[in-house]
């Protein structure tokens, strides 16, 4: 029923952020129904049975909504399928006998913690800089009491689908976090509750993004292509407009 697959996993091993790492190759017997992470679980159980250290990789919900999983698989963040996180990538998209190369996200703002796990706390700090609404919203209003045009609500909703996984940074030759930051700015900035602080938010989040050492956007578009939640480049345009407007309005951050 389920076809067995003999694979070789060429994966990055690195003790911590201070040491340098290298690739190691391990054989693994998988089957086509496994998810990519389940295949790594099987490999880890095998390593543990040999009293070797298992590969450290990040994961949590395993249904594509938490943003914890990462990995660059055969050169692509979250692997070959579009609109798919690593945890939702199933082995039937690989072939028996394949050599699969697995790396951590490579970006100076995402230092390697161990093996293929990286420190993405820079994203948390960008969020802390302005990714919130600080007005007291009071009692929940009645449904439809605040009219929001359907198109705008849709734009906000689509931006809110960002799970903050960092694939955009890993895909970008400049290591830019513009797609992530712009998704957060657009998510809040398209809604009436978020408009109040829009100027302040755009300036603060962009400033923090630069401070963390992320690169600039040069319209390559790799982020959009690799984003597992298919966040659109238009968000970056929205962010740039919000930022420019905020700068020219002279409002202080």
């Amino acid at each position, binding site marked *: *029923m389920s076809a067995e697959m003999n694979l070789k996993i060429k994966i990055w091993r690195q003790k911590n952020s201070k040491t340098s790492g290298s690739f190691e190759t391990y054989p693994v017997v998988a089957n086509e129904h*496994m998810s990519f992470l389940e295949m790594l679980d099987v490999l*880890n*159980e095998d390593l543990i049975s040999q009293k*070797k*250290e298992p590969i450290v990789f990040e994961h949590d919900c*395993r249904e*594509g909504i938490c943003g914890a999983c990462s990995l660059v698989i055969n050169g692509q963040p979250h692997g070959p399928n579009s609109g798919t996180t690593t945890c*939702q990538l199933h082995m039937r998209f690989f072939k028996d006998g394949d050599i699969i190369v697995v790396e951590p996200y490579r970006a100076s703002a995402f230092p390697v913690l*161990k093996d293929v796990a990286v420190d993405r706390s820079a994203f948390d700090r960008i969020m802390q800089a302005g990714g919130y609404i600080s007005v007291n919203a009071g009692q929940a209003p009645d449904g439809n009491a605040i009219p929001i045009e359907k198109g705008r609500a849709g734009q906000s909703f689509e931006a809110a689908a960002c799970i903050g996984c960092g694939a955009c940074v890993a895909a970008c030759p400049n290591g830019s976090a513009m797609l992530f930051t712009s998704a957060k700015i657009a998510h809040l900035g398209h809604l009436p509750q978020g408009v109040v602080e829009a100027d302040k938010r755009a300036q603060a989040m962009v400033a923090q993004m630069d401070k963390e050492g992320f690169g600039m956007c040069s319209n390559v578009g790799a982020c959009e292509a690799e984003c597992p939640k298919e966040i659109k480049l238009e968000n970056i345009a929205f962010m740039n407009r919000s930022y420019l407007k905020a700068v020219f309005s002279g409002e202080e951050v």
Partner: protein
Amino acid sequence: MANPCFTQIHPTCIPVSGEYQSKLTLMSESLRNDGRVWVPKKKEDAQAIQQGKLKGVNIKEEDRDYNLERRYPAFGNLVPRDVASRAAKVECDKGHGVSPTGLAVFLDFSDAILRYGKIEANKKGLTNLSNEQIIALGEEVVSAKYGNLFEMYEKITGENPYKEPMKIYPAVHYTMGGVWVDYNLETNVPGLFALGECNFSDHGANRLGASALMQGLADGYFVIPYTIGTFLANEISTPKIKNDLPEFLEAEKATKVLIDKLLNTKGNQSVESFHRRLGKIMWEYCGMARNEAGLIKGRQMIRELRAEFYNDVFVPGSNDEFNPELEKAIRVADLLEHGELMMVDALNRNESCGGHFREESVTEDGEAMRKDSEYAYVAAWEWNETEPILHKEPLIFENVELKTRSYK
């Protein structure tokens, strides 16, 4: 820990396909709004499907048993989760399951697609449409409602749920019990407040969709802002607590001892293997239907597993680096106690109530039977290695009276 036995088993999950599965992903319950649950009437058909010789779409309408609609005509496919889950188990135990393991039922959208297609056609004033065109219209509507879920199902299973019925089976989803708190959300440790899913306070013996989110919001917005002040007001003059107090040192030492023990056991079995074995014991003896003999046996098995864990676990690495295996070992050590406590609570509660179904406590037609005169209390347990201690907190209903709802 209060009411640990109340476990919500979710009827709409991806069925088991292998030992390596990290979870049985939950498909949203909203699917039962439009999907119809069924199994083949004939055992031969079920077996052929299990062996991959037949598909659900090949089974004729008259050979299908829409078991929820048959058993619960008033609520049909919308019966509560515990009822729907047990109904699936009943059919699969009788040999009518539809996955290779025999543990799955169909959730079928073909009627909904046809129905929505006709509505759309009427709306647009289109007559003379072919069946395919109607289905295409219907699929658009279903896609707008459940597109993301259908996509998720297809990603995991490789099957297209627009064309073939989904296969689902119940899996554990939520524990209604949790840390005991008072009405101010303060635990029995003064100053330690527990909010949201981790406490036991809001759900009782069962839980409705999205109510975990509700609990987080209710506890965070409406309760804690008004209750924590009462505690803090008395502490305003307390200086910053230092970390060289005897209580702190004792707790720190206990944690270090546990970590050293786990790292130095250097046995032969992985943490994961213990976690999986524990899960299987829980599912077998403390799952959808529980009985006294099974719970006693299950509890004993967990105690033996716990002893084996501390004698033979292998935790790689050290405690001065990023070590997720060590973290997991500490969690599994906790779960080995928590699992036993669930068994103890389930054994104590000899009634069927919400997410707890005791085979000894059923009505004549096999439905859950509560025993309010004996068990209308919160069971708060104090952990003890040999025998956990039960503290009863009676449930007093002032404005409503206890009733049993019928879904027939």
